[in-house]
C-alpha cells in the first residue's frame, strides 16, 4: 500500500471516530480538517495514477505551483507524517548513505522518495531558506530522478530590494516551469483567487491567535498544534475550516471555557514535537496549556511578524500577486538572522501570556539548535521567562525516551511555577 493510501485510511478512521464518539474537549472543526486532508490525498493519488506532473518544492512557491495546476510534494512535510512507518523510511535513507543524525523529517521523507512511496518529480524547486536540509532534499531528488532543478535564492533581509530580487526569480521560475513541463501555464487570475482564499484564512487565523490569549486558554492538547493546511491553497474549505476553528474558540472564550482543567501554566512549545508520544495530554493532565507552537511561518500566518515591512500591504492591494508570494518567502522567522526569530517569539510570548518556553530541539537542525540558548537568554532577560532545552526528534524514538521527556517536563513545570510565584 502506498503511503498516501495509508494516509487516506488514517483520515477516514479519524472522521469515523469523531462521528461516533466525539471527544468532549477537542474541536469539532477537526472533522472538516480531516476531510480536506483525505480528499487532498485522494486527489494526489489520482493525479499520480494519471501520470500528471509533480513538483518537489518548497513552501516558497506553493501558491504559484497551484496557480499553474501543478501538484506539489514537500519531502519534509511528507516525512512529518511517516507515523508508524518512520523507522522503515529512516532506515531506507540511512542505507543509502544519508546522515544517521540528520533531521529525521527530511530523512524519513527521503526514505519515502527512494522507497517509491512518493511520485517521481517532474522537476524540483530549491531554496536556501529557512533551512539547509530541506534544500538538500530537493537537490538530492533532482539528481536522483534526473529532472531539472529551479532555484529561488532568498536574501536575509526584508526590504523592497529583497522583494524585487525574489520577484524576479519567481518570474524566472514560472518561465522555466512552462518551458520544462509541456502544457503547464501560469494563471495570474488563479493566483489572485488563491490569495483571496488565503486572506480569508489569514483573517480567521489572526482571530484564533487573539482568542488563544484568553485565560484560561480555550484550546489544549494536540489541538494546540492543529493548523490549516496552507499548502492546499486551492481548496476553499481550508478557509472555511479556519473560520470554523475560530468560531469554536470564540464560543469557548465567550463562556470562559478552559480546555485544561485548572490551568496553572501556559507554555510556548518551539520547533518540533515528538509524534511518537503524546506530551500534550500529559501536560494537560498537569494543568498546563500550550497556547503557542512555534513554526517558521507562524508569525506570517497569525499576523504578528516583527520583521514584516509589508504588514497589511497585501490586503490594501499595494503588492502585486508575485510580490505577495515573495513577501511570504522573505519573512519566515527561521530565515535570516536569529534576531528575527527572537523578536517574533518574544512577541508571541507577550501576546499569549506565556509562562515558560520548551525548546524541543530537533537533531539535525543546526538552524534552531544553535539559536536556542540566545532565545532562552533573551526570554529570561526581557520577559523573565524560564526555558528548557530538550534535544529530541520528531519521529525517531531512539533519540529521546518518553520517560526522559516526561521527567524533564515535570521538572520544568516546577521551575515555571516557582518562577511565576516570584
Amino acid at each position, binding site marked *: 500500500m502506498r503511503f498516501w493510501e495509508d494516509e487516506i485510511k488514517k483520515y477516514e478512521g479519524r472522521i469515523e471516530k469523531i462521528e461516533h464518539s466525539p471527544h468532549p474537549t477537542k474541536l469539532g472543526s477537526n472533522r472538516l480538517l480531516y476531510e480536506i486532508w483525505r480528499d487532498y490525498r485522494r486527489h494526489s493519488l489520482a493525479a499520480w495514477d494519471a501520470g500528471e506532473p509533480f513538483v518537489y518544492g518548497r513552501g516558497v512557491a506553493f501558491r504559484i505551483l497551484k496557480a499553474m495546476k501543478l501538484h506539489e510534494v514537500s519531502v519534509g512535510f511528507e516525512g512529518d507524517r511517516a507515523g508508524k512507518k518512520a523507522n522503515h523510511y529512516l532506515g531506507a535513507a540511512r542505507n543509502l548513505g544519508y546522515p544517521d543524525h540528520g533531521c529525521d523529517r527530511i530523512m524519513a521523507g527521503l526514505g519515502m522518495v527512494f522507497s517509491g512511496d512518493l511520485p517521481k518529480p517532474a522537476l524540483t524547486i530549491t531554496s536556501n531558506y529557512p533551512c539547509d536540509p530541506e534544500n538538500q532534499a530537493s537537490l538530492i531528488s533532482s539528481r536522483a530522478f534526473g529532472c531539472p532543478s529551479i532555484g529561488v535564492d532568498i536574501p*536575509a533581509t526584508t526590504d523592497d530590494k529583497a522583494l524585487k530580487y525574489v520577484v524576479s526569480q519567481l518570474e524566472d521560475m514560472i518561465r522555466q516551469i512552462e518551458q520544462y513541463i509541456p502544457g503547464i501555464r501560469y494563471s495570474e487570475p488563479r493566483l489572485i483567487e488563491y490569495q483571496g482564499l488565503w486572506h480569508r484564512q489569514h483573517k480567521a487565523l489572526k482571530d484564533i491567535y487573539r482568542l488563544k490569549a484568553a485565560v484560561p486558554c480555550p484550546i489544549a492538547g494536540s489541538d494546540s498544534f492543529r493548523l490549516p493546511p496552507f499548502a492546499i491553497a486551492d481548496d476553499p474549505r481550508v478557509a472555511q475550516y479556519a473560520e470554523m476553528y475560530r468560531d469554536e474558540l470564540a464560543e469557548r472564550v465567550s463562556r470562559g471555557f478552559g480546555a485544561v482543567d485548572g490551568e496553572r501554566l501556559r507554555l510556548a512549545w518551539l520547533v518540533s514535537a515528538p509524534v511518537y508520544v503524546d506530551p500534550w495530554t500529559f501536560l494537560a493532565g498537569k494543568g498546563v496549556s500550550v497556547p503557542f507552537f512555534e513554526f517558521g511561518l507562524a508569525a506570517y500566518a497569525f499576523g504578528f511578524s516583527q520583521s514584516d515591512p509589508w504588514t497589511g500591504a497585501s490586503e490594501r492591494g499595494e503588492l502585486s500577486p508575485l510580490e505577495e508570494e515573495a513577501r511570504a518567502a522573505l519573512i519566515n522567522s527561521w530565515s535570516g538572522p536569529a534576531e528575527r526569530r527572537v523578536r517574533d517569539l518574544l512577541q508571541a510570548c507577550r501576546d499569549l501570556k506565556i509562562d515558560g518556553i520548551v525548546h524541543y530541539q530537533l537533531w539535525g*537542525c543546526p538552524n534552531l539548535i*544553535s539559536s536556542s540558548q540566545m532565545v532562552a537568554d533573551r526570554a529570561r532577560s526581557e520577559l523573565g521567562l524560564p526555558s528548557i532545552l530538550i534535544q529530541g526528534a520528531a519521529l525517531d524514538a531512539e533519540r529521546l525516551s518518553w520517560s526522559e521527556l516526561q521527567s524533564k517536563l515535570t521538572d520544568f513545570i516546577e521551575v515555571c511555577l516557582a518562577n511565576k510565584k516570584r
Partner: protein
Amino acid sequence: MTMVDTEQQLASLLQAGAEPNNTKWAREWKKRGGKVIGLLCSYVPEEVIHAAGMLPYHITGTLHGQPKESLLYWPSNVEQYYAHALESLLTGGLDFLDGVVCTDSTDASRRCLDVWRHIGKTPYCYMLHVPYRRAEVVNQEFAGEVASFRDSLQSHFSARIADDALLASIRLHNRMRAEMAKVYDVRKLETPPLSGAEFLGLTTAALVMPKETFLKELAEVFRYLAQRKTSLPVVTPRLMVSSDRLFHPGYLEAIESQGALVAMDDLDTGSRYFEQLGDTDSDPIESLARRYMGRPGTPRMEDWDRQIDRMIALAREYRIDGIINLPQEFDYPRHFASPYFRQRLQQEGIPVFMVSRDHIPAHIGPLRTRVGAFIEMIEAGDNKSFGGRA
C-alpha cells in the same frame, strides 16, 4: 641563505596556521595600531577589508582539546568548527578582533554569527548573504551585498574604501592566488616537495598572515621547493581529500601515515581558496561578486555537478588514485550531498571513501584503520591505474 636556513624558514611558514603562531601576525598588526577583522567563511570577500587598511584574519578556531566554554551556546551535535571558533572567542584567544564577518552560506555559519553577536565581545559583527545559485541576477545580488559590506565597514570604522584601493587589493590577492597555483603545480610531481599535510600548513598560513608578508615569505622559499622532496617514505597511492573548513593538518598526517600521499585537495582552506582570479578591468565590486560566486563552491551551493566535474578534472590532472571525502560531523550540506558525489565519482572509476571527522584530530586510530583498508582496496582494485601513474 643556506639550505638549512631555508628549510627552517619553510618549516616556520608551514607552522604559521598552527597554534600558537596563528594569531601572531594579527596581534602584531593590532599592536601597531591596525584593525583586525575575523572571517568565519571563505565566501567573505577579504579584499574589501584589506582595501580598508585592515587585516582580514581567517578564524581557525581552537586547534586543541574539546570546546567547553562554547558548549552552552553550541552543542556538540552542531558542526564543531564553529564551536571551536566560539571557544577561541570565549577563552580570550580572539580579544584582538575589532570585528567579525560571516555569511549565511549554511545554517550553522549564520547562527554562529548570531551567537557571536549575542556574546557581545566583538564590537563589529556583520553578515553577508551569499546566494546559493549561479545566475546573472545572483551575481548582481551578491554585488549589492559586497557594496553594502563596504559601506558598513566605512561607516563603522570611519574608513575610506576607494575603488582604486579595492582594485589594488584584488591585484594583491590575485598575486597570492597565482603564486599558490604555481606552488600547487608541483603537486603533480611524482615526489612533490611537501606532503599533503604540509601543503595544508602552507595554505592556512595564507589564511592567517597579512598577504604581503605571506607572499614575501613564500617567494623566499619558492625556489627551494623546486629542489625539495617530501620526506614521506611512500608517495603512492596518490589521494585527494575533499572537505570544508579543515584547518588542522592532523587528519592528512594520519592518512599519509598509512602509506599514501595526499597529492591534491578539494578544500576551501586549500585549492578552492585560491582558485579563480578577480577581474581587474571592471568595477571592483562587480569583479569581487563574480569572483566569489564563480569560484569552486561548497556542497551548499546548488551546482553539485560542477563541483564534481572539477574534482574529476583535478583527479585526472594530478593522477589521483582515490578520493577521501572528509565531512565534518554535522556538516549537513556535505553529508547530504555525499551519496551523489560518491555515485558520480564511482561512475568515473574513481575509488572514493568517506569518513566523518571532528574539527581537531579525534578517533584517529579507527580513521587510520579505515584509510589503510581503502589504500589496500585501491592497490588491489581495478581502479589502480586510474588517471595513469607516473
